[in-house]
């Protein structure tokens, strides 16, 4: 169950990253949306963060699904 959730979260984060890349504006917290034109450093920083974490969550979820890795522990 947790593995599926991880895959879903990973896909969701990747979708946010792709949508932000296309729109040139990425959501990054309450009221903070760095844009490619006005705040390129913040935009690319959050884009990289979302890309890395989305792919990592997705791969971790698939590995957990096939039994190669422990799913993320929920306490």
């Amino acid at each position: 169950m947790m593995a599926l959730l991880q895959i879903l979260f990973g896909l969701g984060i990747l979708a946010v990253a792709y949508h932000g890349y296309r729109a040139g504006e990425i959501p990054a917290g309450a009221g903070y949306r760095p844009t490619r034109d006005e705040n390129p450093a913040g935009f690319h920083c959050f884009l990289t963060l979302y890309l890395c974490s989305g792919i990592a969550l997705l791969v971790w979820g698939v590995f957990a699904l096939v039994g190669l890795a422990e799913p993320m522990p929920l306490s």
Partner: protein
Amino acid sequence: MPRHRREPGDAGGGDYFPYAASALAGAVVCLALTITSGGREAIDTAAYFPLGVPLMAAAIFVISYVFPLRAWRWTLSMAAGQLVAMLLAGSSLNLWPLAIIAMLVYSTPQFLAGLAGSRLGRRKATSRAR
């Protein structure tokens, strides 16, 4: 002046996103295989071909579908990401020419998946443009 000619399916906005996504996907899959196998090289693990290669091919398929122009670039970028992951995992550079050739041969499924995704993406973009 535009950097390159726009064709149906060109997502625009620069090209770094698919490069970064494919390189990261290759690196993360290889690092995950190395970590789960207790430090062995990703390519030597039992799960590389049954799990790692299909996972990377699926990633390339999706990336090529969304960015269908010259999709072979995403596979090369993924191979570079895999090489970086293997270097990070402690592989030596003694046999690097051989490693590059082997990596390109092992990337054949990704090239094919990229070709299929690119064709589908172009077809969709062309039908949308009509």
